[in-house]
C-alpha cells in the first residue's frame, strides 16, 4: 500500500487528505452534473470573475454551459437554512479561460461550503479548515484575511462616487498607494481620508501585529463591527495556537454585490499565485432567494502540478528482453517473480532506448541473464 501511495501525484495525495479532513468535520460530498443551463451563469456573471463560459447546445435546443463554478450550483440546490445548516464539499473539474492562456482549461477544484447561520463558530470552523487544507499541502503556507464590511464601510465614508470607489478598490487590490493618491487628488478628497485609504492599501502583517493599526482607520459603525469580528477571530485562533500563519491583507477584494464579511486567500511557498480563496457570501444566497448565510472556500489544485516534482530516475526497475526463441510461459513466470519481489518490469522484444531502467535482463533459452546494471 505504501508503494501504491507513492505513485499518486501531489494533487491526488492532497485530494485524499482533504476529503478526510472535510469528512471529519461533518461535511458530505456533493456530486453535481457536468453542466447547467447557460442562463443561470449569465445572470450571475460578475460572481464568476470571468467573462467566458464554455457553451454548447443541448438535445432540446437549450443553451448549456460546462460549469465554470461549483458554488453557484450548490447554493441553487441547497436545502440549508438558518435553522438547519448544510455542510457540503466537492471535488470537481471546472472550465475557465485563464487570462493569457488563450483557451479554456480544465481546473481541478476542491472546496467546501457552509450554508446556514454563519455565526462566529461557523466562520472559525471554515477558517480552521482552510488552514488545515493549506497545511495538508505544505507547512510553508500563509492564510490572508480581509473583510468586505470594513472596505465597504470605508467606501461609504470616503465621499467617492461609485465609479471612483471601484477604481480605488482596484488600487487597494494592487497595493497601489500612488494610484489612490492620484484619484483622491482628482476627486478633491481630503488628506485625512486619503491617508486612511493609502494606509489600508499598504497594510500587511500577521493578524496580531496588523489589527491594532486598523483600529485607527475606523470611521463608522460598520468598520468598527468588522474590526471587532476580526478581533474575535484572532482571539479564537490564538486559543488554539493557530494564529501565526494568518495575516491581514486588504488587497483581497471581491465583488461587493456578492461578498459581505470575512474573505480570505491562501498561498503556498513555491506556487506563484493564490491557491485557496473563499469568504462570506450571504448576498449571493439571498439573491438566489434563500434565507441563509453562507461561507466557503475552494482550492485550485491544478496549480500543484509543478509543485515539488522530482524527476523520476527510472521508468522501470527492470527491462526484460526476450526473442523469438523464448518460451512464453517461462517469460511470464520470470516477470511474475520480479514483480513479486516488488520490482516494476517492462517486458519487450527490443531495447529501443526510450525507457530508463535500473537493470537490463534478457530471457534466453537457457534462462534469465543479467545484461547490464
Amino acid at each position, binding site marked *: 500500500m505504501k508503494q501504491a501511495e507513492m505513485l499518486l501525484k501531489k494533487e491526488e495525495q492532497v485530494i485524499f487528505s482533504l476529503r478526510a479532513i472535510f469528512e471529519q468535520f461533518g461535511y458530505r460530498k456533493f456530486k453535481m452534473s457536468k453542466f447547467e443551463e447557460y442562463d443561470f451563469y449569465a445572470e450571475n456573471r460578475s460572481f464568476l470573475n470571468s467573462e467566458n463560459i464554455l457553451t454548447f447546445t443541448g438535445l432540446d435546443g437549450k443553451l448549456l454551459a460546462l460549469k465554470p463554478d461549483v458554488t453557484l450550483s450548490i447554493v441553487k440546490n441547497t436545502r440549508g437554512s438558518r435553522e438547519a445548516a448544510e455542510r457540503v464539499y466537492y471535488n470537481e473539474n471546472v472550465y475557465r479561460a485563464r*487570462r493569457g492562456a488563450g483557451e479554456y482549461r480544465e481546473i481541478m477544484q476542491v472546496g467546501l461550503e457552509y450554508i446556514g447561520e454563519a455565526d462566529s463558530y461557523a466562520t472559525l470552523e471554515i477558517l480552521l479548515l482552510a488552514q488545515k487544507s493549506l497545511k495538508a499541502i505544505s507547512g510553508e503556507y500563509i492564510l490572508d484575511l480581509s473583510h468586505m464590511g470594513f472596505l465597504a464601510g470605508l467606501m461609504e465614508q470616503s465621499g467617492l462616487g461609485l465609479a471612483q470607489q471601484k477604481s480605488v478598490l482596484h488600487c487597494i487590490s494592487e497595493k*497601489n498607494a500612488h494610484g489612490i493618491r492620484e484619484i483622491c487628488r482628482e476627486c478633491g478628497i481630503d488628506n485625512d481620508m486619503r491617508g486612511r485609504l493609502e494606509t489600508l492599501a499598504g497594510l*500587511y502583517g500577521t493578524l496580531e501585529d496588523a489589527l491594532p493599526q486598523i483600529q485607527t482607520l475606523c470611521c463608522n459603525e460598520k468598520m468598527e463591527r468588522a474590526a471587532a469580528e476580526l478581533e474575535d477571530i484572532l482571539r479564537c485562533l490564538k486559543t488554539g495556537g493557530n494564529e501565526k500563519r494568518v*495575516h491581514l*491583507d486588504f488587497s483581497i477584494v471581491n465583488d461587493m454585490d456578492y461578498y459581505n464579511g470575512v474573505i480570505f486567500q491562501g*498561498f*503556498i*511557498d513555491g*506556487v*506563484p499565485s493564490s491557491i485557496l480563496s473563499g469568504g462570506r457570501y450571504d448576498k449571493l444566497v439571498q439573491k438566489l432567494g434563500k434565507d441563509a448565510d453562507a461561507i466557503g472556500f475552494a482550492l485550485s489544485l491544478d496549480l500543484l502540478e509543478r509543485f515539488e516534482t522530482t524527476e523520476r530516475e527510472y521508468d522501470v526497475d527492470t527491462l526484460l528482453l526476450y526473442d523469438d526463441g523464448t518460451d512464453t510461459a517461462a517469460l511470464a513466470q520470470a516477470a511474475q517473480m520480479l514483480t513479486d519481489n516488488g520490482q516494476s518490469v517492462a517486458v519487450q522484444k527490443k531495447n529501443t532506448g526510450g525507457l530508463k531502467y535500473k537493470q537490463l535482463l534478457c530471457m534466453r533459452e537457457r534462462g534469465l541473464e543479467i545484461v547490464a546494471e
Partner: protein
Amino acid sequence: MRNKINIALPKGRLGEKAYDIFEKIGCGCPEIHEGGRKLVFEDEENGVCYFWVKPSDVAVYVERGAADIGVVGKDILLEQPYDVFELLDLGMGKCRMAVAGVKGERPDSEHTLRVATKFPNIAREYYRGKSREIDIIELHGSIEIAPVLKMSDVIVDIVETGVTLRENNLEVLEEIVKISARLIANKASYKFKNERIREICGRVAELCETGKQEGKL
C-alpha cells in the same frame, strides 16, 4: 540563500536607470556592468539576481513568479491586466499616452475613426469612454507612418519628446494618460519574502523622493 530576490529588468535605457537605483540602495551586482550578451546576473553577497527581458514581458515574469519584483512601464500594465502588486511609481521613464494626427488636420466626426496603435486595449477603452465608433488597426512599430499614408486617421502611441511626431509631420491631439515606470511584485513573493521586498521598496521610494526633489529623475 532562501531570501534571494529575483528582479526582472526591461532591456534598454529604462532598465539601466532602474538598475542604478537598485545599486545605490545596496542591491548591486557588479558583474552586470561587464556587458556582453549574458542575460542573468547573480550576486550571492547581496542576495539578488537580475535578468534582462523584453520590456513588455516583465509583468509576465513577475506574474508567473519567475521574478519576485520587476520594473515595468505603466503602459504595459494598462494594456493588459496582470495579477501583480503595483508597489511604487518610480517617477522615471516619464512620457504620455496620446492621440496624434497629421498636423493641421482634424479627423471628421462623420466617419468611423481609424486608429493605428500598438495598444489596442488602451485605445478601445479611451474611445469607449467617449462613445466614439472606432476601427483599430493593430501595428507593431513605426506607427507614425499610418496617418501619413492615410491608412489611419490618428494614432494612439507613447509620446516622449515629440520629436518623432514632428519629424513625421504629426502633432498631439489629445492626451490619454501619463506614463512612468512602476515597481511591481509577485503576489506570493510579496507574502513569503515580505520583509525583504518591503525593505527594498522603502529604500527605493526614499531614493526616488530625494531624486525628485533634486530634479534628477
